[in-house]
């Protein structure tokens, strides 16, 4: 009997390194400060050992042989030399081979300046080429998809993109075609590369073979400046690096956050930058692509530009007049705001307008009180679960990166998926048991699944599937339920009842509530929900969006403060338009939209990448969002608009900046707003759980091609210096020496 070892010792360049058994040599060496050059290896994908760049000398029974470090699992007592003459010659040889057919069009290549091939040629390559033959030629970039261009001359055949498509996204829309040195990445000509994850292949391409159409020639890497932030396109909250050239957003890259996105992004999160600059200045306020750059006030039936003072005064006048009647005013929207903005608006509603009719969800969510009552699970919990039960829409459409994470877990043995789905979702091929649910019957199907005895005949439940699902679910141990709206047309109470039943019947199961919208979880926590005050304090029930719209139509409610585009987001659009037509409407929004046709006052707000704050993802993880560019025109951050509107209504929230709002939020409720804002890490902090220090995974320099890639690779004196680039904000505000408990600005 051999004892299972928990750690092995490997000698890398004469230094002993502790490692876990089965770890890859390339990772172990990197942790020990020895960077082994690589192209095909990516820490989030299975190694293939194709590019042979990581050849190192490994002592073996037949003497030292060259082995690819990315394909070599460490054993105890392994002796490795990465810089012997033989290893160096092999690395130089491979680089020379790679460069033989690689065109020298670095000056026009989007990757030039942040290119791993350039960097590693400098650090590990030969000085000069000996290749005098004609290089391989292909037609210069071909469009392989709506967002991705392929330059086959530059391809070094590392298969990162094809492996991503097959292994991670699970959709082989691109594959290698041909043989030998004419091998090329190719989609089928009739079926272009339209995956919703196509942008990731551009990011992980170690050369400029795959380039993104929106970023093509937009900037050179050395004039980019970047911040690390969080995506608010959906509730997954992927960490990303936002890059701009001057004050113009140019590119978004995924940051490898271990608990959340593993470095991946969906194309929606990656390529929606042009929404921020308003598609080059569209001016029609009803066009949802246009940016609102100035306050607007309706005069004689048309919206005209006004000053902030005029607009705030008019808004205050309308809201005050309506607020004097009981239940005469309400707030709808805000699921895309930061936690601080949501908190500020929740306080404006409760303390200044005196209303409980507050709802961040546009009627497409679930009852927040029930959601918060369920035992929560993180994305990691769902991926580690024995059984995942899905009762939600198609995750690839609604929460794309959650789909990637779940898929990555479910393809491994020991994970089962029980799917309750209205239609076949992208996860369907991985389902162990798939139970079809007709819209409106989710609660009945769950009941039938869990009840003893025969299932009602009209559900047409397959007895065998039901039996297998029951066996898999057991008492809920190791089960994570991914719960969301299966269908937006049905009443949310259907899903809520199903969830309640599941929680009762599976006491040990945990729930990952897959609400869709950007920061909906943070908005609920901050009190932008009927019946919930900031910090999840239960209150007397207010009206949700549907009830408010009905009250507006009936004239019970007179005015509404809309945060965002209500008409464009609500399911019952004619109903919403009819309601807004009768009401006084104040809209706070960064973008145009159909709601503005009914607005009396429009207050322009900053949008994502223009505002600071924190956001909370669907698992309750609080991370920081960081501004990169200045909001256009007269747009303000929501926190400032809320504070000024409160002031116009005669109240002082004492929250004139994001930091003050975060401080107020955290001190009032204990929510980790300020602490995350001032000390933002990639992983953030899950609200309500103790903050454990998370080991920061070294970012793959090639998965994260920043402008400092040379330092990441380790050039010259900076070799081994792996400190990440500084992030905003770098330090807390200086405290006033005379008043130790307050910052200088707090007394203002």
């Amino acid at each position, binding site marked *: 009997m051999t004892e299972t070892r928990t750690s092995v010792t490997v000698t890398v360049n004469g230094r002993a390194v502790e490692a876990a058994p089965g770890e890859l040599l390339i990772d172990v060496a990197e942790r020990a400060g020895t960077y082994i050059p690589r192209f095909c290896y990516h820490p989030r994908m299975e190694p293939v*050992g*194709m*590019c*042979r*760049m990581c*050849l190192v000398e490994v002592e073996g029974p037949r003497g030292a*042989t*060259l082995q690819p470090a990315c394909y070599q699992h460490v054993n105890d007592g392994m002796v490795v030399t990465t810089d012997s003459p*033989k290893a160096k*010659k*092999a690395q130089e*040889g*491979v680089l*020379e*081979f*790679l460069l*033989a*057919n690689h065109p020298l069009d670095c000056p026009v290549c989007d990757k030039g300046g942040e290119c791993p091939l350039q960097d590693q040629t400098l650090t590990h390559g030969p000085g000069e080429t*000996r*290749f005098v*033959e*004609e290089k391989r030629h292909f037609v210069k970039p071909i469009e392989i998809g709506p967002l991705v261009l392929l330059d086959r001359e530059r391809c*070094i*055949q590392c298969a990162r993109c094809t492996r991503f498509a097959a292994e991670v996204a699970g959709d082989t829309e691109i594959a*290698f075609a*041909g*043989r*030998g*040195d*004419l*091998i090329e990445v190719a989609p089928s000509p009739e079926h272009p590369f339209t995956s919703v994850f196509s942008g990731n292949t551009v990011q992980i391409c170690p050369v400029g073979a795959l380039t993104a159409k929106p970023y093509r020639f937009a900037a050179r890497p050395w004039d980019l400046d970047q911040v690390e932030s969080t995506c608010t396109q959906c509730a997954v909250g992927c960490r990303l690096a936002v890059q701009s050239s001057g004050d113009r957003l140019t590119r978004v890259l995924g940051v490898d956050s271990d608990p959340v996105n593993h470095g991946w992004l969906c194309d929606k999160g990656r390529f929606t930058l042009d929404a921020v600059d308003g598609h080059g200045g569209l001016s029609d306020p009803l066009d949802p692509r246009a940016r609102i750059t100035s306050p607007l006030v309706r005069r004689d039936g048309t919206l005209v530009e006004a000053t902030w003072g005029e607009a705030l005064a008019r808004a205050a006048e309308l809201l005050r007049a309506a607020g004097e009647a009981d239940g005469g005013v309400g707030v709808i929207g805000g699921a895309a705001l930061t936690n601080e903005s949501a908190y500020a608006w929740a306080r404006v509603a409760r303390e200044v307008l005196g209303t409980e009719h507050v709802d961040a969800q546009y009627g497409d969510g679930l009852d927040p009180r029930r959601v918060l009552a369920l035992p929560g699970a993180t994305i990691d919990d769902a991926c580690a679960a024995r059984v995942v039960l899905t009762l939600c829409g198609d995750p690839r459409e609604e929460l794309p990166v959650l789909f990637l994470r779940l898929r990555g877990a479910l393809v491994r043995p020991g994970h089962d998926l029980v799917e309750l789905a209205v239609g076949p979702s992208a996860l369907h091929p991985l389902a162990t048991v798939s139970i079809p649910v007709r819209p409106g019957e989710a609660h009945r199907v769950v009941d039938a699944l869990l009840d003893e005895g025969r299932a009602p005949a009209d559900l047409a439940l397959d007895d065998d599937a039901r039996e297998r699902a029951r066996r898999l679910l057991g008492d809920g141990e190791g089960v994570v339920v991914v719960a969301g709206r299966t269908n937006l047309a049905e009443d949310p109470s259907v899903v809520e009842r199903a969830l309640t039943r599941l929680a009762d019947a599976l006491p040990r199961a945990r729930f990952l509530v897959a609400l869709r919208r950007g920061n909906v979880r943070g908005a609920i926590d901050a009190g932008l929900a009927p019946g919930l005050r900031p910090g999840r304090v239960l209150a007397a029930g207010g009206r949700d969006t549907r009830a408010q719209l009905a009250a507006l139509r009936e004239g019970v409610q007179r005015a509404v403060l809309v945060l965002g585009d209500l008409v464009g987001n609500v399911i019952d659009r004619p109903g919403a338009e009819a309601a807004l037509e009768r009401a006084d409407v104040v809209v706070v929004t960064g973008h145009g939209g159909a709601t503005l046709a009914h607005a009396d006052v429009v207050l322009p707000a900053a949008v994502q990448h223009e505002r600071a704050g924190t956001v909370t993802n669907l698992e309750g993880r609080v991370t920081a969002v960081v501004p990169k560019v200045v909001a256009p025109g007269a747009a303000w951050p929501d926190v400032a608009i809320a504070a000024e509107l409160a002031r116009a209504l005669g109240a002082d929230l004492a929250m004139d900046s994001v930091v003050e709002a975060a401080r107020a939020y955290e001190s009032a409720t204990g929510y980790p707003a300020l602490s995350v804002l001032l000390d933002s890490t990639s992983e953030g902090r899950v609200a309500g759980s103790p903050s454990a220090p998370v080991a920061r995974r070294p970012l793959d320099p090639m998965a994260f091609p920043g402008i400092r890639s040379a330092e990441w690779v380790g050039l010259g004196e900076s070799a081994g210096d792996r400190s990440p680039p500084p992030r905003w904000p770098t330090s807390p505000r200086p405290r006033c020496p005379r008043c130790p408990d307050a910052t200088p600005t707090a007394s203002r």
Partner: protein
Amino acid sequence: MNRPGVYEVEMVKNTFRDLIYDPAFGGGVPGDRPVKAFIPGGVSAPWFGPDQLDLPLGQDEVGGQGSMLRSGSVVVLDDTTCLVRAAWRITKFFSRESCGQCTPCREGSGWIERAMYRLEHGGGRVEDLELLLDLCDNIAPGLTWPPQQTTICVLGPSIPSSVHAAIEMFKGEFLAHVDKQGCPFD
């Protein structure tokens, strides 16, 4: 060969000379031309010269001399054959058969093929010999036997064997190509 074909011979009992000259087997070289070199076991194998004709047909015997018998297909090159051309054609075969998965084989075979083509067709330089050997060394480090490899599979170290053998055995012929800026056999 006068009688090319497939023959069953007992291992070790016969020699290459028997195989090539015995009327029951190869039946000699057409025109009774002298053997300049022969490939003992398929195009992956390093070449042998006439002095190894009396080597017995056995795995160990051939292996001990730095080549192999593997597929057992013996190719005889007589004195009318341009060795550069023969080696180039073998490299071209490997270049076309490389699957393209790993770099040294994919790019190395193509590079060596093009350099050999250039040498054969009159663009050769003296430094090309050193270059070719170094490229071979980058695919099969040390150019040892049995070969080491930087590639995933053993197609990689098969590429250099003929080029290496040709340069080692017939350097003069390569230099003649360089001097003449073309093939002296044309």
